[in-house]
Every structure is written in structure tokens, then in C-alpha cells.
């Protein structure tokens, strides 16, 4: 009998239509990375958890349109996540009923210690988002994917649907602005959170 844990990501994606558990295996493999991306993008851990669910629901909906050029589905999933977060309010509306069916045990802090850790993490996320707010949205995208999610330049290009050279140039620009060697125009990131709420 087949074991999903041994299947490669492209195989799981192919099987997912007839065997939803195959897509569950993709979630198992990549949900932590998607969650971390959503958390760093929004600065809101609770919202990031729901957005992670939305990312996979949206990815399932789009699965037939994608042909993975990489053994890992993560670059594609982070590309979906980038769009989901960018349109968080619309995404939340589309999947509101599905989100309402998530068991309560999947939400919120499980202990006082957990709550404290989450509070501190959200403070750190807020500071980090403030720090990159001088970058353009496009520059933030490559920072989030290459520097904060450890994608290669090629994988980040796949996720964003742009040439690798563009990833390099945007990252160089971001670093230059961040280090103060280029003029910066502050770009607020908080509307992403407010829009989704």
C-alpha cells in the first residue's frame, strides 16, 4: 500500500485530487514554514495560523494550474502565501466558512507560558516589520523569502514569478536601503494586518 510520507511533493500534488490525505501530507511537511512566513509578513501569530490554513486551501484550489519545477512544493506554497497575505481580507472572506469549522483546540495559547512566548514573539515581529518598513513591498517580498524563509534566489523567483536577476537586484536594493546607503521611503506594513481583521 502506498505511503504518502515516502512520496515526493509533485507526486502528492498529483494524488491530492483523489486522495485528500496526500495534500494533508504536504501540509505536514510545509505548514511550519508557511506559518512562519505568514507570521513574519503580518506580525500577528493568531492571524498567521488561520492564514496558513487558507494558504493550503487556496493551494488545493490552484493545484491543477501548477507544474512544480522543483522537488519541493515550498517555493510555490510561499508564493501562494504571498498572494494570500497580500489579499488577506479577500482570502479570509472566501474561506470564512472553512475557518469557522476549525476546532477550538487549534487556536489560541495553550498555557500561560505559551501565551508569554507568543506575546514576546509578536513584539519582536512588530519590531522587525517596522525595521523593513523603509523597503518597498517588492523588496520586502524578497527579504521575506530569501533572508527570512531561506529560499534560494531561484526558488524565490519561482515563488514570486519573476526572473532570478530581479530577485538579486531587489535584494541588493533592500540591503542598500537598510544599511543606509540609499534613500528610503517608508512603506507601512500594518494595513496587511488591519485589512485581514
Amino acid at each position, binding site marked *: *500500500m*502506498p*505511503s*504518502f*510520507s*515516502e512520496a515526493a511533493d509533485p507526486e502528492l500534488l498529483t494524488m*491530492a*485530487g483523489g*486522495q*485528500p*490525505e*496526500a*495534500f*494533508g*501530507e504536504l*501540509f*505536514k511537511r510545509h*505548514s*511550519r514554514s508557511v*506559518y*512562519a512566513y505568514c*507570521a*513574519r509578513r503580518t506580525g500577528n*501569530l493568531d492571524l*498567521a*495560523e488561520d492564514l*496558513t*490554513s487558507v494558504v*493550503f*486551501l487556496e493551494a*488545493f484550489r490552484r493545484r491543477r494550474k501548477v507544474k512544480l519545477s522543483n522537488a519541493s512544493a515550498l517555493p510555490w506554497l510561499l508564493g501562494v502565501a504571498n498572494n494570500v497575505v497580500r489579499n488577506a481580507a479577500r482570502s479570509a472572506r472566501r474561506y470564512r466558512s*472553512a475557518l*469557522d*469549522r*476549525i*476546532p*477550538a*483546540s*487549534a487556536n489560541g495559547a*495553550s498555557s500561560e507560558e*505559551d501565551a508569554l*512566548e*507568543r506575546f514576546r*514573539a509578536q513584539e*519582536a*515581529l512588530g*519590531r*522587525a516589520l517596522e*525595521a*523593513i518598513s523603509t523597503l518597498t513591498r517588492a523588496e520586502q517580498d524578497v*527579504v521575506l523569502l530569501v*533572508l*527570512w*524563509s531561506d529560499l534560494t534566489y531561484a526558488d524565490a523567483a519561482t515563488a514570486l514569478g519573476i526572473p532570478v536577476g530581479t530577485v538579486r537586484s531587489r535584494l541588493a536594493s*533592500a*540591503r542598500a536601503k*537598510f*544599511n543606509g546607503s540609499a534613500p528610503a521611503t517608508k512603506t507601512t506594513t500594518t494595513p496587511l494586518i488591519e485589512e485581514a481583521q
Partner: protein
Amino acid sequence: MNDLEAPPVPNLSDLRLSTRQAHLVREITVHNRDWRRGGLTVGSSAFVAAIATVALVLAGPGTANAFAAWTPAPTTPAPGQVSSAEAACERAAAQPPPGAPPRVGAGASQVSLVDTRGPFTLVLFGANTPTQGVLMCVRGPSISPSSHMSQSNGSLPAPGPGRLTLDRLQGETADNGQPYTIAEGSIGSGVTAATLTLTDGSKVVATTGNGLFLAWWPGSAVVTSATLTTSTGATTQSIISPTRDTGSSGN
């Protein structure tokens, strides 16, 4: 922050992730099938019961499609939904219709498993109690109250680890003539989720717990296979459905 360093993000616990993984699988199971066929899965009965009693209480105003609100995967119950179904089930068990065989006393039995799908609730009483048999109650809208009895074929061997045993298929008919089918059985150790594949190709996610599973769906299709999830992945097990029992029910 120095040189665009990544801010730390606390790890999600395995429990939280597995809960959301199960939710994802259920959601895409629901959206990946024809909604018109719909399906509802419920709790399950005991393979150890010599006589199994199945009582179905389907309450609500009649509509053209009794199963319009049925879903093929479990949902979170509304406040009071489960307690209301339990009470209706106990009332049905206490007042068997004329000519119907005697039933187990639901009030004297423990609830073994509860499954909710939209407005429908199925409560399983007294499973794995060798002397009492079991009582299952489904409550939902658009179907007037009815109850059904059936006799089991006796004890079946417990399934092995990671396996499933389908003990019984119960065929029933709603007020408007629409048939529906209940499947009940047992799951072996390590099984965390079960999805049944029917002869018409549709899939129904079962509610599992306490070593049991139960499911029901509109129509007369029977089970051909079950996809079982364990900690090591998912496997598919072929199922030879028992004869669909329709002859011993009564209202």
C-alpha cells in the same frame, strides 16, 4: 535588528498542526465531491454486541431534499445540538413504535461517540458493552422522527493495528422516500482518521474514537475501501461490504 535578520517565530505544537491538518483534509474532501450527493458520517457500534439496536431520530420540518444540509465530513456542533440529539434519542428508545422489537435503554448507556455534520447529529450509546447492544440516534432537519431496529450478525474480530473492520451497513429511508445508509465498525490501534470510498466514487469522512467509527450518507451506495491515517502515513484498505440490512427496521 542587524543586517535584516529574521525575527524568531514560535513553533506551533504538533497537536495544533495535526488538528489543522485534519481540518484541511476534511475541507478538501467536502469540496472535492459533488455536493448534491452529500454525505454524513457518524459514530459506530460494537462488534461485541450480540444484539445491536439502531434507533434513528430524524426530526424537523419536511423538505424536498431531506439531506440538503448533510455534509460528508464532520463539523463543529452548534450550542445545544448534541444535548438535544441525546434527549431525542433517549425519548425514542423509551417509546418504541408498536410491533418494534425492544431496544436498549439509551438512558442507562454511556455515550460512546458523537458526530455532527451541519445540523445533523448522530449519538452512539453503549458501544463495546457486551450485554446491552448499542443505540445510535441521528437528529437533523427536514426529516420527521423515525426509528429503526436491526440485529447484528454477532461479534466480529477486532481489527489489527492500522486497520478497519466494517461490521454493518444499515439501509434506511427518509420520509420523502430518499434512502440513506449507515456504516458502523471498529478501527485498530493507531488509526487517527478514516475516509470511506463508496461504490459511486464519493468519499465520506468518518468520525472515529474509542476504537470505533460510524458514517452515514444519502443513497444506497456501499463501501469499497477505506483510507486510514496513522502516524506513519495513510494507507488504503479494500473493504468487502456486508449485506445492506434493510429488513428489520421499524418505525
